[in-house]
């Protein structure tokens, strides 16, 4: 058990990413404020990045595809946030509220 504590393995990184992912997910679902939801959405992406890099490092450190891929996801994350804020801005001009529960029109 001792070597497990001091000897950082891929397992630890995966657990870390898992916890970060769950916190991000909780933030998205439970937050009242749209911006807070979007921020916690960013956590999801960063958790995934940790996974990418961890696997790339531990498993196939030769081909480095993991690393390259995480770079791309970081870029996409940024773009996605930009889009989100543009849409949020337009919605905000309509309703003037940040509270996520007011935006209920998209209904079956």
């Amino acid at each position, binding site marked *: 058990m001792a070597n497990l504590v001091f000897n*950082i393995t891929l397992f630890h990184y995966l657990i870390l990413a898992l916890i970060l992912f769950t916190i991000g997910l909780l933030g998205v679902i439970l937050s009242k404020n749209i*911006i807070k939801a979007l921020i916690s959405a960013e956590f999801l992406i960063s958790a995934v990045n940790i996974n990418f890099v961890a696997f790339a490092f531990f498993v196939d450190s030769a081909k480095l595809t993991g690393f390259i891929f995480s*770079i791309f996801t*970081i*870029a996409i994350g*940024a773009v996605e946030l930009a889009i989100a804020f543009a849409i949020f*801005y337009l919605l905000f001009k309509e309703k003037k509220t*940040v509270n996520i529960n007011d935006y209920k029109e998209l209904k079956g």
Partner: protein
Amino acid sequence: MNSAEILTSVIFYLCSAVIILSALLTILSKRIMYSLIFAIIVFFAVGFIFMLLNAEYNAIIQFAVYGVAIPILIAFALMFTSYKTDKSIYLAFSARLILTLISAILFVLTLFNILLISSSVVDWLFTSQSSLILNKYEMFNSISNGLYIKSFFALELIAFLVFVIIVGFSSLTLFKGKRNG
């Protein structure tokens, strides 16, 4: 357990503690500005994790993009909104709260279990980090050539995509809504 192992493990545990703590604080804090600050802390800590995994290139990009660009963007958004103090998550819909908490716990337990199960299948899950030190220079040059040669096409596509979206959506915001309210 030589000193390098202990050092990396200490850094690792430190960084992960910081990540988890500030992530929790971002979703629990009442004021939106506090949650923004804690988010920045989380992004930087993740950057350190990349450093730990010898992915300096990624760490730099992480620091540059998440550390700086996105918080500025969010700050702008906060400027436009009158960021009244809003209530924290405790006022969320109570039934949904219970439901998500239960499912979150279930989710974590099961994935943890899966990882344990998969450990019996896969051998590389518990090889220690210290035994895999890569040569730093080779790492940096191989990432750059990988980026610009092997996946050059993907890079161009992503760049073009980013350009189009940023220009499109920023022009979208200038668009005066036909009907207001």
